[in-house]
């Protein structure tokens, strides 16, 4: 239901998420992001392929953001799909995250 692939670049890592993020799949994303954020590296999460996300997905992103802030590491959301943007907006978090438009 949720595919996660990581691309390493000199600037940091990008996690490509594809599928649906809910109570079942959000733990996979948390498991992927937690060690990356704890390492202090900059992390980008590409959400262009996420067709559905609920509050548990939002919670994972907030948790990663908080871990990054503790380590002084950047955490960026890339190209969130329309649905993800709607959910972030509903949570009034669209201004809290650094969001990079797709290119």
């Amino acid at each position, binding site marked *: 239901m949720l595919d996660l692939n990581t691309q390493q670049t000199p600037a940091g890592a990008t996690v490509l998420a594809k599928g649906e993020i*809910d*109570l*079942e799949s959000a733990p996979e994303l948390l498991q992927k992001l937690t060690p990356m954020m704890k390492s202090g590296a900059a992390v980008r999460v590409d959400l262009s392929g996420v067709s559905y996300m609920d*509050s548990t997905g939002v*919670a*994972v992103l*907030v948790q990663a953001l908080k871990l990054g802030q503790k380590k002084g590491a950047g955490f960026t959301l890339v190209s969130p799909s329309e649905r993800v943007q*709607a959910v972030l907006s509903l949570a009034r*978090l669209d201004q809290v995250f650094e969001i990079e438009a797709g290119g």
Partner: protein
Amino acid sequence: MHQEAYELTVPAEPASLKRVRDHFRPILGHLAGDRTEDLLLAIDEACSNVIKHRREEGQGPTEDLHLRVETDPSLRLLMRLPGFCAVADKDKIKPRDLDDVRPGGLGMHFIAEIMDCVSLDPDPDRPGMLLLTMEKALDPEHLAEDPSGDGDA
């Protein structure tokens, strides 16, 4: 508009959430048009809440989730989830302050934002439990022909 009712019973586990969304997406698409994904989110959050609380309480195999989605003659969409929570936990069920940016606790906020009215009433079939009812006014312009040709599913 005639009344329509759709029901689904699934195991109270995370793996059921996608099944719930996939089941109700075409039904809500027919009833609510471009509000469908928001309404699915409200259903998902309600079900997730039940699953999480039962898990936190360390319950073993639990009673299934039973969802009922219906319309009434006044063009309201009613989504009901029996056994939503224990009467004793009613005060814990409320949206949290969004100014505090932290993980978790957003589910009830989403439901309150999406729905017109949310109520918790004694569940007539489960003593000590509450029935969640979520209501949303339907826009008649969004209503299409019943895709199944048969209201009851």
